[in-house]
């Protein structure tokens, strides 16, 4: 963030130096949907670029995820005869816990670096900030799942990437990071942010968690699409309902700052 601000002001100054007319900084705004999504992408790209340079979030999420899979593997080793019995729960449980590590950094990092005011001053709709942050978090968690899910395959000897499971994971991650990003914004300014976020997030995630496990278990049992399509529907409904509420209320979060 600070880096992009710096280059921006640098550009403005060099512009002023070469042409003596004192042209005020022109805000480049593109109307319509295309312009909106460009702004969303600009916010997301900023977070992704910061992550590529600082490597702060993704590494922690993957390391924690792998560690958790190994811990569960050891924990169930003596008592569970078949990995398929616990693999769905392990997969979704680990994703939920690993996700929190990224979500609390989403706005938490902005608070720590005092860059939140600059972000809020960006000439974009507040909802564009939300969707940009959401997109970046989605990419982080999806990248972590790309490592965590194969780890579950190896440790529990079950193919959790077959059939409709990846689709369920996609829908689940949308709902999870969508609500998580908003709750990350709510908890960014409070004491004990790191411990408060999972307490707020986990119970609201119960439908996603149950639908994910239900879907994964059904696919692993070799059921037909008709037997588990309601889980995909539930995940879809969850995504639509909660992203809509998030879109409606996000404006209210920083109205006094």
């Amino acid at each position, binding site marked *: 963030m600070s880096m992009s601000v710096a280059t921006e002001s640098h550009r403005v100054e060099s512009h002023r130096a070469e042409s003596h007319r004192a042209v005020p900084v022109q805000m480049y705004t593109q109307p319509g949907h295309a312009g909106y999504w460009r702004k969303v992408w600009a916010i997301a790209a900023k977070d992704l670029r910061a992550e590529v340079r600082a490597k702060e979030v993704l590494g922690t999420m993957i390391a924690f995820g792998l560690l958790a899979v190994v811990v569960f593997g050891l924990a169930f080793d003596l008592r569970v005869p078949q990995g398929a019995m616990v693999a769905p729960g392990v997969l979704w449980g680990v994703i939920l816990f690993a996700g929190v590590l990224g979500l609390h950094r989403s706005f938490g990092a902005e608070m720590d670096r005092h860059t939140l005011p600059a972000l809020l001053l960006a000439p974009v709709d507040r909802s564009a900030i939300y969707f940009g942050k959401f997109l970046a978090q989605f990419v982080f968690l999806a990248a972590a799942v790309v490592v965590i899910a194969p780890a579950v395959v190896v440790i529990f000897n079950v193919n959790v990437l077959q059939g409709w499971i990846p689709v369920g994971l996609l829908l689940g991650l949308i709902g999870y990071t969508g*609500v998580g990003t*908003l*709750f990350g914004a*709510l*908890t960014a*300014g*409070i*004491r*004990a942010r790191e411990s*408060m976020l999972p*307490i*707020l997030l*986990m*119970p*609201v995630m*119960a*439908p996603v968690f*149950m*639908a994910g*496990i*239900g879907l994964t*278990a*059904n696919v692993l*049992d070799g059921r037909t699409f008709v037997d588990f399509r*309601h*889980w995909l529907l*539930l995940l879809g*409904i*969850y995504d639509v*309902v*909660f992203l809509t*509420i998030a879109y409606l*209320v996000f404006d*209210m*979060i920083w*109205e*006094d700052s």
Partner: protein
Amino acid sequence: MSTTSLRRARSAGTSGLGHIGLLVLNIGAVIGMAGLMWASLLYALPASNLAGDEQTAQRIFYIHMGCNFGALAGFLVSLVGSVIYLVKRDLDWDRAAQAAIEVGTLFGIGTILTGIFWAKPTWNTYWTWDPRLTTSTITVLIYIAYLLFRNGIDTRQTRARFGSIYALFAFASVPLTYYSARWFRSIHPVVFGSDNPDAEGGFNIGVTMTHTLWIAVIAFSLLFSMLMLQRWRQLRLEDRIFELREEIE
């Protein structure tokens, strides 16, 4: 002190008539609960199709259902309070939502505890992942999180706004949790040898039991209103004390 704060100082406490109203409500709630104890333990005839421990334990049903009724009322009031707060930005609605959630959570915990005591003799287990048990537990956890969350926010307006936003998410997730919990069970082996989890421990309702149920509804309505209004008033006074302290400093 400005005139508005003077007016608020007067309205923050309760006027004379309000005091009498609250007192009547208190007494009504006490009589209602005492009446419910008598009705559920003595007046209601035992369930005809149950025997032994199960028959005795069935009497907890009136308290169980009453608590559930109170919890539901609390969470509904909290939704209304939160939405109105977000629209009108009147802190009194936020206080109403907080009072409703505190009392609702208390009743929710009551529902779960009485359910646990009832389940052991009837189902021979304290706990099962029945959709209703799952939903009520997760709902209570959500609202406990709400109360913890509010505690962590220092600015009064921010606390109200963030609390109201979280209350919206909390309430919206309850029906989805219920449906996922209902579908979730269907993939597991059914523990009680029947498709209907209510089947074990069900009973036929007689006339005296219907009467007792009505007494339970009235008694718990009084108890809920009393606790909720008292807590609402207390929160109003708390904010008032805080405001006055700010003015002095």
